[in-house]
């Protein structure tokens, strides 16, 4: 069973990797020879850099705005208004039940009357990406807040004369950093590979890496395989970073318990 699982998970990746280096591979079991030319061709295109930049831009913007919106909200609700928690969780769970296609439709149907400039804009795209990644941002932060003794920390900071902003930035944020970090990384990796919302909300006007990749699969499979490998490696790296950040949180917690 484990062999089946590993084969199912790894074979498509291995095949894609090998395909991107193969000169010709449609008559024999293994590639006839290996080459780097598909990689060179795929990476040297101007559109490659451009779409990469656009994807990074959208992912980073979503990540930053999401951190700035969710962290203070989760902190305040945790500390001063526990009653608000079910309502906040409702908003963060709702995106699970809304497929990207339907979110895009809803936004267009709702805001198209204000003009195409607003509804089909990169800003709307970032806001929509925030919605779909909201569960990934909120959960780790709440877990970190539950683990750290936020109340005592806040009271200590206040009794020493720190303002709300200083408490938030200098006392609370460092203590829940691993949660913020995991959340931010999850948001980043989710948005980077997002295809549906980009395709329906901004389309050809603002091409991101996944859109570029899909266009390529239609007319040049060899170069597309190089792009797919990049995409997989990227997903691996961000996932490993998330696992690292969460492991850090775990150790942090154990350390804190051990000290007590």
């Amino acid at each position: 069973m484990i062999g089946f699982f590993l084969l199912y998970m790894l074979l498509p990746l291995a095949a894609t990797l090998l395909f991107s280096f193969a000169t010709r591979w449609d008559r024999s079991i293994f590639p006839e020879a290996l080459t780097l030319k598909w990689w060179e061709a795929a990476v040297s295109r101007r559109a490659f850099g451009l779409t990469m930049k656009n994807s990074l831009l959208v992912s980073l913007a979503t990540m930053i705005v999401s951190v700035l919106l969710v962290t203070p909200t989760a902190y305040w609700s945790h500390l001063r208004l526990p009653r608000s928690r079910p309502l906040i969780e409702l908003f963060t769970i709702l995106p699970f039940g809304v497929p990207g296609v339907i979110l895009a439709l809803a936004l267009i149907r709702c805001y198209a009357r204000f003009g195409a400039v607003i509804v089909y804009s990169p800003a709307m795209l970032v806001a929509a990406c925030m919605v779909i990644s909201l569960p990934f941002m909120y959960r780790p932060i709440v877990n970190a807040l539950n683990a750290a003794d936020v109340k005592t920390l806040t009271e200590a900071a206040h009794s020493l004369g720190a303002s709300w902003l200083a408490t938030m930035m200098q006392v609370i944020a460092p203590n829940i950093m691993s949660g913020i970090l995991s959340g931010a990384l999850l948001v980043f990796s989710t948005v980077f590979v997002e295809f549906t919302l980009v395709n329906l909300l901004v389309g050809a006007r603002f091409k991101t890496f996944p859109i570029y990749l899909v266009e390529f699969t239609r007319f040049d499979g060899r170069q597309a395989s190089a792009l797919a490998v990049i995409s997989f490696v990227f997903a691996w790296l961000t996932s490993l970073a998330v696992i690292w950040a969460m492991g850090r949180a775990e150790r942090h917690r154990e350390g804190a318990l051990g000290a007590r």
Partner: protein
Amino acid sequence: MRPVRRTRSALLWIPLLPFFLFGLLMEVVPLATVVYSSLHDSGAHLTLANYQRTMSPVIRASFANSLKLSAVTAALGVLLGTLSGYALMNVRNALFRGAATALADVATNFGGAPLAFAFIVTLGSTGFITLLLLKLFGIALYPTFRIYSVTGLVLAYLYFQLPLMILLVQPSLRGLRQEWKEAALNLGASEGQYWLRVALPILTPSLVGGFLLLFANSYGAYATAWTLTGPDINLVTIRIAALVRGEVQLEPGIADAMATLSLLIMAVCVLGYLGTNRFSQRWKR
């Protein structure tokens, strides 16, 4: 004294306003718009006409296809994911176990174009497995099998459904205590009886919950299907997207009705999952 207190507690909500405003503008109002306009004609009269028009054979078929695809990939995902998860748990080597779990974690998030493409390279008409079977064993997959079909979609969806199920079922599998098995065997039960009469009933809530979440996951998927099979496959998400993109004659009413029905299906799945989740928590220490 009391009114003062009430104002103060109302003031406590102010820092949460940006978040709620965001949720209202980006989630509640747009979704409500879709539901509202699905039930009204252009003159704002209450009507079920949009739903009547979704009863056309093509649209009914798209719902049937989407539901079938979701049910099949969810059922296979639950079965294979649970078996893999159990096998994985019994691996002695902690490093290997960690690596395999990390693999499941990453694969859950794979999807869309790269995934579809990887399956074309593996099982397409000149794919790796296709060639391997043809040259080594003389088995010709094509033209009977096609990766650009619904069967192909099932295989591709399983790539993220299977690992998701592993992650979902692992906590419950770990919750099965060794003592229960020993007690059952001591009392004369066979291994099979233990699994059927003790373990399975305890696992049932997580299995049902996993099925519902996998179902929703597959129902809402769009990018993988779009890349693998193109705009011609008749699935609900593909159809709604085509209406949004204006590829077919624009009939917003139909898109709204299809979206509302889909939201209902998704709501049943997600709420059902949350319900079973509460149930399965009982068995955990």
